[in-house]
């Protein structure tokens, strides 16, 4: 099917384009972009007047919970939520049941996504076999099967020698290592950020330094082994500073943060709201400011959601007992657009963080509207105001601290290889 996306504000950092243009899609590829193009015969037309037209958004940190934990989410519901949030690609994390440490599981995910999914799914395999943190998984086979990175997300690789070797080995294979940076001894039994709020609520705190130390180790190992590393879900001002300094020295480090880390502080935990419980935990105002600064100055490369669906029964419990994590696919775009509204990022930079950079870091061959590119395109209505409501979320799980929030902006159409997979 051919497609014309007409009269939108096309923002494509890969070509330095920010102008009112039309986009013509043919056979799943971008054929042409330009002003006032003629409608190809038989093409469907999307009127994008007043909308942004950007390379399809990419969320490089999503938990699809499939296989094994389908009561929380599965590939169908998760990719439907992704498409509704404007994402054409997601990377799924390997803390599934079983974990993604072998070819069979990778193939299962890719096949199911291809036949039943609503967006591209790029699996992230495990760094270690069984995610036990003891010996390396078969990264070569994982890459051949289709994994775009390896990570033991949810758990750090505590053994520094193993992490060093994993970085070296992965460099040889040509696969990126994504680190869940956390020093577990310092985390202990903590359930929220350590600070005034944890003191007042009497909840055991997780100090920032638990993340900072792990981030520093990863940066030093990456520097020592001359290997690339990507730090997941950065939440502290210390981590931002460590990564900024490392980048300035030329260390091959990239990183991401999540919308909740630049939108909320640990004040959201007051009332013992288990939907404000995640790992790393919500931090304090100084951290939020540093995260924004890091996004602005380029220290933080990507915005990823760490979409972590959990069943109501796993959240409707005492605070200490509640599972870590929140869903994010359907709220990421409006929350991130606030950064543009607040002058933290330009629209161009936002598209970098949500499409171009993740594509480049993971070599996904996306993130561009150049002629000949795969036609993964997101059309964004920046003006629409809406309320985040449980009943209207596509995700199977509803564990969001943003329920009831009035937000602005959302995807009005999501186009996957030329096919409309979502439209309002």
């Amino acid at each position: 099917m051919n497609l014309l996306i007409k009269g939108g504000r096309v923002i494509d950092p890969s070509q330095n384009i920010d102008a009112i243009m039309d986009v013509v899609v043919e056979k799943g590829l971008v054929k042409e972009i330009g002003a006032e193009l003629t409608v190809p015969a038989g093409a469907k037309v999307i009127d994008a007047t007043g909308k942004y037209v950007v390379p399809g958004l990419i969320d490089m940190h999503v938990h699809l919970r499939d296989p094994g934990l389908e009561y929380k989410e599965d590939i169908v519901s998760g990719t439907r939520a992704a498409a509704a949030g404007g994402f054409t690609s997601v990377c799924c994390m390997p803390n599934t049941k079983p974990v993604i440490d072998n070819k069979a599981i990778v193939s299962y995910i890719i096949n199911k996504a291809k036949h039943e999914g609503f967006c591209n799914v790029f699996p992230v395999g495990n760094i270690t076999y069984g995610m036990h943190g003891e010996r390396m998984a078969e990264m070569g086979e994982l890459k051949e099967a289709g994994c775009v990175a390896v990570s033991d997300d949810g758990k750090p690789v505590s053994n520094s020698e193993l992490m060093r070797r994993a970085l070296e080995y992965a460099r040889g294979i040509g696969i990126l290592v994504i680190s869940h940076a956390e020093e577990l001894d310092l985390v202990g039994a903590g359930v929220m950020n350590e600070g005034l709020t944890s003191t007042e609520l009497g909840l055991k705190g997780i100090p920032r330094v638990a993340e900072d130390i792990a981030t520093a180790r990863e940066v030093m190992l990456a520097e020592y082994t001359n290997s690339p590393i990507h730090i997941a879900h950065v939440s502290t001002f210390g981590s931002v500073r460590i990564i900024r300094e490392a980048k300035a020295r030329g260390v091959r480090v990239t990183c991401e943060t999540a919308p909740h880390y630049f939108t909320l502080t640990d004040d959201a935990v007051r009332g013992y709201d288990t939907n404000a419980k995640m790992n790393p935990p919500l931090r304090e105002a100084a951290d939020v400011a540093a995260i924004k600064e890091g996004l602005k100055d380029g220290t933080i490369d990507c915005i990823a959601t760490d979409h972590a669906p959990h069943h109501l029964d796993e959240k409707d419990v005492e605070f200490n007992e509640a599972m870590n994590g929140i869903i994010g696919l359907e709220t990421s775009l409006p929350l991130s657009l606030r950064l543009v509204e607040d002058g933290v990022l330009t629209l161009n930079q936002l598209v970098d963080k949500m499409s171009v950079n993740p594509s480049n870091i993971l070599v996904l061959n996306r993130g561009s509207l150049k002629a000949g590119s795969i036609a993964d395109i997101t059309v964004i209505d920046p003006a629409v105001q809406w309320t985040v409501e449980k009943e209207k979320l596509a995700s199977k799980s509803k564990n969001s601290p943003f329920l009831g929030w009035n937000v602005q902006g959302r995807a009005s159409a999501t186009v996957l290889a030329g096919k409309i997979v979502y439209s309002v």
Partner: protein
Amino acid sequence: MAEFKHKDIIALRDLNKEEIELLLSTAESMREINSREIKKVPTLRGRTIINLFYEASTRTRTSFEIAGKRLSADTVNITTASSSATKGETLADTALNLLAMKPDIIVMRHAVSGSHYFLSEKLPSCSIINAGDGAHEHPSQGLLDMLTMKDKFGRLDGLKVAIVGDITHSRVARSNIQGLTKMGSAVFLAGPPTMMPPGVERLGNVTVCDSMKEAIQDADVVMMLRIQQERQGKTLMPNTREYSRYFGLNPENVKLAKPDAMVMHPGPINRGVEMSSCVVDGDQSWILKQVENGVAVRMAMLYHVCGGELE
């Protein structure tokens, strides 16, 4: 007279000065009942109180039970050993099952901070009283401590209260900080920095001291906290011997406080650790008076959440 409008009493943080004063003055009048030969009034006749204890307790549970019985309520005790918690039932399910039996008040102790708010949300028609939640609050203890101080000094305003020990893990300290600050006292904290939670000085009129000496110097009240090794893990101090040397109250350092200072402890005491025995049993000790006041304070709490009137 102030009115008490809360369904629950979960934290002194949630109460204002007038409400705390009301609870304390009601407790004072309840004491008269406790000194009678027949220690029973019909105030809460026909009411059902469930004491739901997910953590061990002797003093608090007994005190709440006696308080309920003296007001003629029917009291039922559930401790973890005999509840479904051991069979894996969730707190929410336990709560709903108990609710089906239509209690008026649930008095709960639970290891997880904030679980009473969770319970209250599930049980809109039942009053919840917190008998201790994790390291959050222990409001009945805070109230009985304040009542005891008031007994001695006739006021709370302007008192210097030293609290010494593991502040991080102490719900008693938090309730006292919240209550005393509202009542006009100044709280001075001492303990190893490993046991001092960040930001605690911002919870009210609170000063974090570098040494025990600084905290108890000229204090009107010296409140010692129990060292709870079961909650602490192993990294906060070398051992109780060294702890006792720097943060134990003994006949020597107690002299730093005002001559008529009162010495308090929420119990149970580790004799020879946070307090030497001769201070526990000495003239300045108000520890057993605290326990006595506990019954009156809990009667006042039960009475006010029921919204009844004194006969």
